[in-house]
């Protein structure tokens, strides 16, 4: 066919960048995409019969190779590997000012199919054709609805367009190598880590999981972007569950991340951490129930990181500043102080480590093919910008490389590596003194110390915006009269957490990293947050609602000394 040849040359003429040789998959994707752009909207006997052509088309392929090893109760329950290639086809019809993704129709723009794992051009092209055909039909349908809705609806508050103008990106890197995992060795390690909980019989359930993933993301678009971008990650997760005698559910979770499994901590370090978790749950079981409290508190660095991710980070996502359903907490606060002036918050996907700790939220190109950028969100307490995808908002019309989402979803502005820094940092011993002073000042017998808190993203992934909640897991009372710190359980934070953030008095001088999975409308993505410990003048807490289940009736089999005498059983036929 003549058309594709012309289409092939056009984009390259637009910019001087030298185009590298495309790997076969990316090349096939590109050829087929250009054929689609050249053919769609051109079929039809006359102008009346012709459909509106797409103004934008992109193919995004995730070629992922993964290994998973999982143990429970001290033995293996799963050891598997998987290699798959999946393509997200995104079709836009209309124009950047108003297209088929407008408002509630955003999710309809992407459809996903499996692709061959080999570079069979004919099979790949056929699958892409089928998916594009289907996606185009959906896009036309949704665009029609968008136009109708625009006519009948009152004027929207934010009249920004639906798609920002951006430069195409070209970058072809070597594909990520398949994960190298010594299966037998790691099965043994995961097994024995899970066995550690046998020494803590009240931890009645535990899951230990190792995952190693190598993914290469291929991206091609009708604007001329051509990307091949590798990413590797390995993660060890432990999740341990217990229950107090009064029915309260208790859990602890911890994750360890690295680029490959070789980067994960050595076995003795992991064993020590797991033993700590087991001990901690046993202690929590015996800990007294908390009482309602309103007073000063310290969040550990890890707790502060989770807190900032959940309470601040999500509210700075670009698309949340626009749309009828959104809270829009910060929409009108640009260039206004939103935090104490000694605090700054940046999101930087371009760094891969913090000190010696690997960061989960790193990437080179986001899921819309935009280059990752370090973004100064809050400078000296003043809100400067948001996390932007290609969805423009009233105050910002361009992406800053934070358009992220899991396979099958249209990307939204999301976090990467959220980094909180402070110019009012004191050693933690000093911070503790300040807590006690503040408690005395307020006439409280104690202040609280939040050592660990959880959110929707630690090990479970939640896709609903209720992930703004944080669940305190390990909390201590720090007494003014000098008696030892006392562990309490059942603490739940009340009131607007945002208000609490404005009451940060000072921070510690050492930052801690929290790595995990983040869930929101565009799905589950890996992220991190980095923060120092923080002293808050006021936080309000209450007792959390108790579970209704009793703990297990019989003791854990691992504590039964002798085998129970067998009940007389029938002998069969």
């Amino acid at each position: 066919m003549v058309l594709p040849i012309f289409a092939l040359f056009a984009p390259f003429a637009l910019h001087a960048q030298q185009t590298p040789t495309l790997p076969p998959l990316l090349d096939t994707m590109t050829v087929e995409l250009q054929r689609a752009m050249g053919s769609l909207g051109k079929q039809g006997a006359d102008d009346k019969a012709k459909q509106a052509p797409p103004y934008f088309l992109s193919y995004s392929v995730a070629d992922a190779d993964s290994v998973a090893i999982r143990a429970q109760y001290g033995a293996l329950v799963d050891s598997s590997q998987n290699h798959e290639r999946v393509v997200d086809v995104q079709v836009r019809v209309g124009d950047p000012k108003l297209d088929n993704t407008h408002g509630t129709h955003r999710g309809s723009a992407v459809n996903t199919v499996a692709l061959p794992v080999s570079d069979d051009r004919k099979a790949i092209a056929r699958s892409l054709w089928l998916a594009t055909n289907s996606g185009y039909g959906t896009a036309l349908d949704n665009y029609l609805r968008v136009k109708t809705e625009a006519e009948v609806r009152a004027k929207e508050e934010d009249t920004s367009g639906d798609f920002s103008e951006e430069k195409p990106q070209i970058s072809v890197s070597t594909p990520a190598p398949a994960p190298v995992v010594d299966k037998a060795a790691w099965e043994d390690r995961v097994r024995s880590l899970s066995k550690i909980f046998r020494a803590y019989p009240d931890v009645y359930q535990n899951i230990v999981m190792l995952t190693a993933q190598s993914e290469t993301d291929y991206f091609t678009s009708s604007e001329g972007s051509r990307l091949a971008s590798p990413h590797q990650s390995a993660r060890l997760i432990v999740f341990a569950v217990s229950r107090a005698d009064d029915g309260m559910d208790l859990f602890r979770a911890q994750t360890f991340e690295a680029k490959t499994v070789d980067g994960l901590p050595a076995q003795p370090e992991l064993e020590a951490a797991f033993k700590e978790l087991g001990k901690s749950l046993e202690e929590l079981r015996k800990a007294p129930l908390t009482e309602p409290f309103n007073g000063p508190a310290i969040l550990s660095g890890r707790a502060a990181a989770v807190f900032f991710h959940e309470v601040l980070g999500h509210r700075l996502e670009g698309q949340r500043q626009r749309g009828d359903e959104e809270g829009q907490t910060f929409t009108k606060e640009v260039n206004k102080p939103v935090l104490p002036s000694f605090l700054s918050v940046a999101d930087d996907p371009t760094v891969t480590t913090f000190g010696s700790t690997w960061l989960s939220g790193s990437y080179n190109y986001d899921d819309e093919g935009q280059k990752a950028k370090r973004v100064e969100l809050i400078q000296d307490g003043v809100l400067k910008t948001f996390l932007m995808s290609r969805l423009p908002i009233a105050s910002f019309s361009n992406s800053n490389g934070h358009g992220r989402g899991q396979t099958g979803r249209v990307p939204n502005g999301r976090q990467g590596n959220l980094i909180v820094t402070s110019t009012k940092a004191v050693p933690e011993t000093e911070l503790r003194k300040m807590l006690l002073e503040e408690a005395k000042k307020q006439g409280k017998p104690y202040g609280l110390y939040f050592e660990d808190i959880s959110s929707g993203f630690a090990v479970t992934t939640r896709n609903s915006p209720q992930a703004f909640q944080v669940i305190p897991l390990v909390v201590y009372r720090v007494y003014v009269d000098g008696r030892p710190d006392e562990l309490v359980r059942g603490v739940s934070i009340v009131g607007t957490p945002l208000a609490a953030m404005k009451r940060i008095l000072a921070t510690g001088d050492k930052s801690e990293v929290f790595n995990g999975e983040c869930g929101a409308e565009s799905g589950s993505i890996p992220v991190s947050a980095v923060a120092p410990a923080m002293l808050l003048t006021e936080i309000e807490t209450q007792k959390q609602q108790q579970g209704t289940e009793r703990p297990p009736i019989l003791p854990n089999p691992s504590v039964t000394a002798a085998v129970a005498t067998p009940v007389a059983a029938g002998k069969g036929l």
Partner: protein
Amino acid sequence: MPNFIQAASLSLAALVLAVAPLASRAEQTRADAQKDPVLNAMLTELDRNQGQLQLKGFEKPFFIQYRLEDIDDYQTKADFGAGTGEERRRQRVVRVTVRVGDYKVDSSTARGDGSIQLASLDNDPLALRASLWQATDQAYKAALAAYSRKQAALKQVQTPPQADDFSQEKPVILLEKTVELEPRPVDWSKLVAGASGLYRTDSALAEVEHTVQYATAGFHARAVNTYLVNSEGTIVRKGQTAYDESFAVGTQAADGMHLDRSYASNGSALADLDSQEAFNKHAASLVASLAELRKAPLVEEEYHGPVLLSADAAADTIHELVAPAVAATRPELGTEARTKGAFASSLHARVLPDFLDITDDPALKTWKDKNLAGAYAVDDEGVPAQTVKLAVDGRLESYLIGREPVRDFPRSNGHARAALTGPAQPTIGVLRVSAKGGLSDADLNAKLLAMAKDRGLKNVYYVETLGPELTPRLLYRVGADGKRELVRGATLDDLDQRALRSGILAAGQDPYVANYDGAIPETVLAPALLLEDVTIRRANEKNDKLPFYPPPD
């Protein structure tokens, strides 16, 4: 009549077969079972719970059952000539059922009660026992809550239940050898890739290559070993393997109507599958048939009259209409009904013509050298499978039942089977439809044409294959001269239990063997059926738009 005698002696042989395997084995004991590390862990934890599990102030369980499924699963798929990946997964899942109350009234509900946990792949006794411990604890607490709800519900109705909640059965100890997936003689990924690419690699299919919209092939192999112990003393270890190779292809006719063809070759051993050549040949013929289907005219708007179902189509019809109806489960609380479903009140009534018999015979393992997927020895409640004469001379004489009794059927006949991790429910095993005075294919066709002539019909119909929900896939209009013409876009109406009861005029001789490799493997053996009055009409489904642009070369 020769056919009748043949059928009877075959049944007798089958009955003998059903008893033989269990009697010929040396009596197995609990001590034998304890040599198996999985069974040993299950028995240890069962004993502990049976002896000690009790919530203070509440009753102990009167029945506990553990069922562990060890699943080894391999799958590979391909589209358009290239593989989209393969996966091998090994997993163990335990399902625990606890009953509180007694055999007359217990905590069981209609949903099927059970707590599920992943279990250790290692034969680590403490880990296995921990999964069972957790599941038993959850199941017991759920049973206590369900029992008090049931007692409250019983007080709300005037009509008491007409059967006990749980049947009394003799405990069974049966230890079969474990099964494994056969080693791969071929690269299955390559095979399915090849089959899915025939539309473009087979030169004979060049005409249709451009019109094919999807072409997909898959191979699936699964070995499941089931371990079952209960507090009555039953101990069962049994295994089953299933292999399945499938192909599907589709396009649209010029008017937008979707045209789909699919085919599967399956069995319990690799040898049961079609050879590679046979499978590819069949797949190619399916692709080629798309060309015929595209050219085929639309079926007439509406037709009422004689329809001949091929044995293949008849088997699907029986599977759809009769199989669910012969399973007996507990009826709604407070009603006089015997059971649920289409045959709920049909005991001793005629449900088929008097020249048809239906038997469910799980002991029948092969039919003319073909392995039958639905054959098994012991069901998933630990009850040996019985051969059940369901319909004699067209009258319903029995139901397939598990340990949930219904009026007049207080005992299980070993037909309660479960999908993986699911509750056991009465299901067919090997359902055989046999005809007295069955006609040859030629005679059936002659009869069909004779009916056309008698009723002054321009044409009658022949159904060769059906798809899901009894949608015709290959339907032929048969002219008065016997000439067959393929038509498309039809749906069958009035093909229901009434049509089976009073509309079957004749049946064929040789049954078609239909193996269903679904959640629970089943087999239906059925001859061709000639029905007097079936409605065929246009499906009139919404015709999607044809592709917006042509496929790549």
